[in-house]
């Protein structure tokens, strides 16, 4: 029985790439997301200039060969700052989404597989968390525990927990009723093994789609927190902080605000396109509705 499930997911995957190369949204979104990831990785080992060293004499210089995107009010190289900012955003997104899936996933699975008081408690707690707007919760947490990159990541990550708990529970409930799961339970497969071998491969698709969306939201939230001065602290640059600093200089140095703004917009757009593309490609029901070739 478990073999059928495995074969199904393999066949699904082979068809995936064939369809993927014909999906423009997925391709564009994927290319943007991959570029941001690569730039972020590069910023870890190399940037054209160090971003914590100021060079006041060269402040607000226009784009040149030495500084392809110019310098800011402290004479820092904007390209380098945007690169480090990308690293910052990706790190926040990864940790926040990781935290969400890592805690929310098991909670959702547990509550689907073991209905009862605990599962109800988990779900009502999620509902409670949903009642507060994400950014407001994050502002509250950073206000209590102090501003900083770590605290803002945790604050954003915490909001992702109920998102994934709820989603996982929803999709798991239907899988839990499937005959092959019932069969596995009947022959006495341990619950953990059922969860990992039979359930997880079948609920992974919506989780992956949601992860890309949450990744984009986490980047936006981090930018928002840093803009308010609650996220990444100086001297470390971040896109949101660059936007904030540029605010009063909009009249004479608009690029200081436009460039990080473009970075945030393009990255979020890329992740959303990727998420939409993944949903189109991974969701069998949608595929049938769109009359795509069956695999």
């Amino acid at each position: 029985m478990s073999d059928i499930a495995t074969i199904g997911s393999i066949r699904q995957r082979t068809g995936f790439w064939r369809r993927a190369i014909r999906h423009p949204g997925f391709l564009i979104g994927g290319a943007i997301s991959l570029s941001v990831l690569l730039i972020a990785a590069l910023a870890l080992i190399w940037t054209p200039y160090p971003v914590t060293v100021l060079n006041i004499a060269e402040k607000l210089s226009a784009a040149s060969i030495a500084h392809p995107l110019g310098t800011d009010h402290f004479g820092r190289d904007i390209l380098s700052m945007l690169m480090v900012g990308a690293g910052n955003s990706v790190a926040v997104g990864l940790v926040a989404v990781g935290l969400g899936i890592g805690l929310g996933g098991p909670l959702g699975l547990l509550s689907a597989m073991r209905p009862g008081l605990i599962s109800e408690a988990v779900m009502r707690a999620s509902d409670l968390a949903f009642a507060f707007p994400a950014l407001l919760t994050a502002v509250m947490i950073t206000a209590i525990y102090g501003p900083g990159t770590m605290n803002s990541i945790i604050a954003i990550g915490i909001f992702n927990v109920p998102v994934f708990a709820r989603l996982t529970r929803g999709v798991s409930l239907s899988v839990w009723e499937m005959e092959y799961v019932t069969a596995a339970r009947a022959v006495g497969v341990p619950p953990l093994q059922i969860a990992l071998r039979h359930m997880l491969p079948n609920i992974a698709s919506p989780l992956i789609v949601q992860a890309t969306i949450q990744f984009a939201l986490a980047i936006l939230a981090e930018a928002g927190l840093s803009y308010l001065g609650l996220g990444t602290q100086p001297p470390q640059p971040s896109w949101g902080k660059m936007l904030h600093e540029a605010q009063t200089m909009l009249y004479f140095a608009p690029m200081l605000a436009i460039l990080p703004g473009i970075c945030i917009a393009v990255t979020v757009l890329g992740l959303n396109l990727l998420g939409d593309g993944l949903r189109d490609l991974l969701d069998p029901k949608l595929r049938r509705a769109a009359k795509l070739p069956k695999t």
Partner: protein
Amino acid sequence: MKTKLFAAAFLAAGLGMSGQVAAKDSLTLGIGLEPPHLDPTAGAAAAIDEVVYQNVFEGLTRIGPDGAVLPGLAKEWTVSNDGLTYSFALRDGVKFHDGTAFDSADVLFSINRAMAEDSTNAQKGLFEPIAKVEAPNAQTVTITLKRPTGHFLFNLGWGDVVMVASESADTNKTKPVGTGPFTFDRWSKGSEIRLKRNDAYWGNAAKLVKVSFKVMPDAASSAAALMSGDIDVFPNFGAPELLEQFRADPRFEVVVGTTEGETILSMNNTNKALSDIRVRRAIAHAINRQAIIDGAMFGSGTPIGSHFAPHHPAYVDLTSMYPHDQAKAKALLAEAGYASGLKLRLTLPPPSYARRGGEVIAAQLAAVGIETEIIPVEWAQWLKQVFKTTDYDLTIVSHTEPFDIGIYARDSYYFNYKSDRFNKVYADLTEAVDPAKRKALIGEAQKVLAEDSVNGFLFELAQNGVWKKGIKGLWANRPIQANDVTAAYWE
């Protein structure tokens, strides 16, 4: 339909007309911080004085736009030869805004209230030299001092020494009642404080009928409010980077004046590392003042080498005592045992001089091996954590009180600086009356602070006023915390 249109046109014309008229005799000023309340005798916040000083409340003397001591509610005074007894003749016919008469009983009440044990006056030091206050008659007040005090008449001109009435003193925080040319009209918390002309004023009536102070904590929205005409004047515009734009705009003029704001990198002198004079001197050598002024203030500000205003006649230029020298700074740190580096906290209050200046200083200190952890805080937290409990290593703040070098003689001031040498100089200074001797002692006091490198002395804050063209009679400089609009008018 026709009548409706007509009515609308009529209404529009009426509105346009009243708008024009209003511009002639009303003034809207932008202020960066909202005052916590409106009683200048019960709070340290400069924002209180910046609304009510001289406009609503007056003192026995008043400070003029150039910092000179002028007669206020006292029309004249005599000082005894030993410098201990001051006799003030009060003005006739002065009335508080609630209609009660101002006389010597009110002076007694005001000064005794400020000197009382349970007084909440933020500048008790101003009253400390006073031995007794007497009122021989309704129009005369005699103040006897414990010792000659050179600055006494200037001190009487502070916002903290304004005259209040016993009937209204308790409610001045929300409904200020003074003797000034403007009366309090209304306070919309969080947005605006309105004053209106006091038609029963004892002196020359104000030319403006309505004055409004709009609270604008954010530089970008302040700029937008100026551009759109919601604000006529921003006496002290917080974002120097935007001044160029206002200079280029024919609707505005940018008036650059002086303030009493010594902007310093305050050091907690009881911190283990910072208690070592070599570390403090190393920091002084690591600091590049011009880079801070250019980077954080866009060139606005004058470098200082001690805690003293450069425009004061007794100023001594000590900016070259610790030239920017990273090698020297590193050597001094090594000598003090911090060759492998030093980690300090840098607590920064909200103004841009602190937040941006802090980033520049952090980078300059990093270059000599001092690592700083930047902690941005709000004012309330700064006052509690830095100012009251002195739980900090480094902070950046502008000390805007006039002639405030005496704070270094205070025992538990937040720098935690203790120097018998300075205390001696300052004690001599407070008792000196001879101008030449005073000047020499003031110079000496500046030198002691610079030699001890008590704090990192950065720059004197400039007063960057953005004024709509046509407004006259405002102060370009800020010799005392005030936005005196009593002589303002539209041309």
